[in-house]
């Protein structure tokens, strides 16, 4: 009965990964027409499954949600589902919508109320998110039932036999054992296929360091033979956002933007980072709105001198605010990208972290952090004399926040408007909405998030001041 679905599932088995590690929920802060909204989308762990969509906005509006597959488009989308207010909270609206197949979706969220109506589209990826592990109690129960069924079937065969009862029971036992064995083999094969092809996981990359003259170059290639980067579009002006985190202590953090030399090669000049082993996380967005996270590791040699960095003179900023675009391949990079930044230093265990060259960034979020509880990571940036710092946009954003669990099982990159790829959102939104809103440049910046699991996290927050890009690092415990 479900067999017919196979046709479609096979059609949609395009290569697909996720723009995060271990942090599948989607956060969005922005506007739907005249209404300010904070949206949290929790995709299902397995497909088909229900995605939960929570919308926080003004009371007295009606909210509806419609998942639209990027493959089949709005004409083939199911009807919108009404999101009623949650009992006891007139400003929180919630709906569950079915996602049947793996792939990329645009969640169309429509608000209608006294102030007018508006729509916002949030990109969501649907994929299998968990490796199935059978709880021992269930395994024991199923095992016991299996033994009873096996013995019962053999006994029934004996009861049904008109002659040579023992022989009939023996044949039945052999046939049954063969069937059970083939079933177990089938399970193993399906499980391997699932883990290799269906389970969401970051795409591995191979990173190497090449030295030429007085400079080190970092090169990235996809580890899988099938992966290709020829369909990438720019996300705030860059084809890739690459983060390097020093593995042993996490003291070193770099946010780099190598250029694409070929369809399977990125290359960039390495800043003078301390030698050692580094974890790599890359973020790319494809022209269809799909985002990938790339992961790898690299050992960096001792730096040789300080490479030059392209000037930042506002031209670059205008480029970062342009809509996503397909780019051609680049020539060999001669200098660091104007927006490359790095930070060396211990993280603050308190809620106040020093910035390089003076000044502080303060984590204002009150109370403790609790896993799976929606929160706002709110920071204030202060100048060396303790006044509100003057902030400028950094790649079109008021700030960037990167967080990683101490064991590397969670990694995500947030903007003040959430966890989504801005390029992906612009690609799925109508033209008139496709310009990113100019970042509000108060000295305070807020990132919507919910930590997916308890543990120790390191949080880096990056802002641009007239003195350049500054990074504050915090250690945060999540209960």
């Amino acid at each position: 009965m479900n067999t017919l679905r196979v046709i479609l599932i096979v059609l949609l088995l395009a290569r697909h990964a996720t723009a995060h590690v271990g942090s599948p929920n989607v956060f969005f802060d922005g506007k739907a027409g005249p209404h300010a909204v904070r949206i949290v989308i929790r995709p299902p762990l397995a497909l088909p499954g229900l995605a939960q969509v929570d919308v926080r906005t003004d009371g007295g509006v009606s909210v509806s949600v419609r998942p639209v597959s990027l493959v089949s488009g709005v004409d083939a989308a199911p009807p919108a589902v009404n999101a009623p207010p949650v009992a006891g909270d007139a400003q929180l609206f919630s709906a569950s919508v079915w996602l049947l197949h793996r792939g990329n979706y645009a969640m169309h969220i429509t608000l209608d109320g006294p102030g007018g109506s508006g729509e916002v589209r949030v990109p969501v990826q649907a994929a299998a998110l968990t490796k199935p592990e059978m709880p021992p109690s269930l395994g024991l129960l199923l095992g016991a039932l299996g033994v009873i069924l096996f013995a019962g079937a053999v006994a029934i065969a004996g009861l049904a036999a008109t002659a040579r009862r023992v022989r009939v029971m023996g044949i039945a036992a052999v046939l049954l054992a063969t069937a059970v064995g083939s079933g177990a083999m089938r399970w193993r094969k399906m499980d391997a296929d699932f883990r290799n092809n269906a389970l969401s996981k970051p795409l591995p990359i191979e990173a190497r360091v090449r030295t030429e003259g007085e400079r080190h170059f970092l090169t990235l290639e996809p580890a899988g033979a099938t992966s290709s980067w020829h369909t990438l579009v720019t996300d705030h002006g860059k084809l890739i956002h690459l983060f390097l985190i020093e593995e042993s202590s996490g003291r070193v953090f770099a946010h780099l933007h190598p250029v694409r030399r070929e369809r399977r090669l990125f290359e960039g000049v390495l800043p003078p980072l301390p030698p050692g082993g580094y974890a790599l996380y890359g973020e790319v967005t494809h022209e269809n709105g799909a985002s990938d996270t790339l992961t790898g590791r690299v050992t960096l040699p001792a730096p040789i001198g300080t490479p030059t960095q392209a000037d930042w003179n506002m031209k670059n900023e205008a480029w970062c605010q342009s809509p996503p675009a397909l780019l051609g391949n680049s020539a060999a990079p001669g200098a660091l990208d104007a927006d490359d930044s790095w930070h060396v230093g211990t993280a603050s265990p308190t809620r106040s972290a020093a910035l390089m060259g003076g000044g502080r960034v303060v984590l204002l979020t009150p109370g403790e952090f609790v896993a799976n509880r929606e929160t706002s990571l709110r920071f204030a940036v202060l100048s060396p004399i303790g006044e509100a710092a003057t902030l400028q946009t950094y790649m079109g954003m008021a700030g960037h926040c990167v967080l990683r669990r101490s064991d590397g099982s969670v990694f995500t990159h947030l903007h003040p408007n959430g966890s989504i790829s801005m390029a992906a959102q612009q690609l799925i939104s109508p033209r008139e909405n496709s310009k990113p809103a100019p970042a509000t440049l108060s000295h305070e910046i807020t990132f919507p998030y919910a930590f997916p699991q308890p543990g120790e996290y390191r949080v880096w927050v990056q802002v641009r001041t007239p003195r350049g890009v500054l990074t504050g690092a915090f250690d945060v415990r999540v209960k």
Partner: protein
Amino acid sequence: MNPPALPDRPAIIGMLLSAAAAAVPVSLLWDFSWEATVGVDRVWGAPHVATYLAVALAALAAIALVLRNPGREIGAWIVLWGALAFVTAFAFDRWWQAGYGLAAGIWHPPQLVKAVAFFAIVCGAWWRPSPRSAGPVLAMIATVTLASNFANLQHGAAFFQIACATYPMVLVAVAVAGGGRFPAARAALVCMALQAALVWLLPLVKGSPEGGPVYHPRTTLLPPPFPLLLVAPALALDCMMRARRHGWMAAGEGGLAFFVVFAAAQWPFASFLLSPAADHWFFTGGGRHWPFFMPLTAEMHTSFWPGTPFDLKNSALALALACASARLGLWLGAWLRPSEK
């Protein structure tokens, strides 16, 4: 005055068991229709509850029969085994769906255990101490092979090979084990009636897709494919097998008869089902009723889909399968014959 005679309790229980067995494929076809219309699979969705009730009713009836006569009611024991297998498959499947979903494939291990459980229930209800209606067994075969039963596939070799491998075993067994006039044809008619009732009734129930992509919007439940014309080969087998024959010769003749009569009836009927003449509530043909999730071009609606050609080699394979299936049917029929047990 004497109180009125109590009804023969085992007869009523037996009828309940037969009804529960018939409800199993009926609820599964309803579930197919639901999945092809609404698309989302809820544990407590109406067709699922119908399946649970059918299994529970079958189990209760089987317990009543076994308690009365534990040594003789082999069929009831098989039904009970099927009910326990269903419970096992249900627990296994809940875990499977939460982890793998459908991403690991459709015919996954818990689904296979479920299919075995359903066949145990319908076969147990058929076998009992003496054979009852095999209609639900035929309907169960039609349910698990449903994906190959679309009229657009009925000129392909795979369709005939699947039908030839499965139906002759049951039809020959029924014809041989007997019970009244034209037993195989009666079983085929029951099977067709169960399916046809759903073809006519399900489109009266409201339903629309809740997930996407929706390639064929619907407002009512999808009718399953129109039943196969099994009554034609069943009549032929009734006539041929009346003499209670056995051995490979009889199997060869039975297989050949099924193959020839079934192909002769179904081939033109499939063409009819795709024609505008079948676009009617009775046949629900004309290429207008599709699961919402199947992406099909307009030409595919009323054309035969390319597949393995029904050529000499593939026909020979279908015929061989029909003969082997008929041989198993002869063996099963001999075992089922009340006099020999």
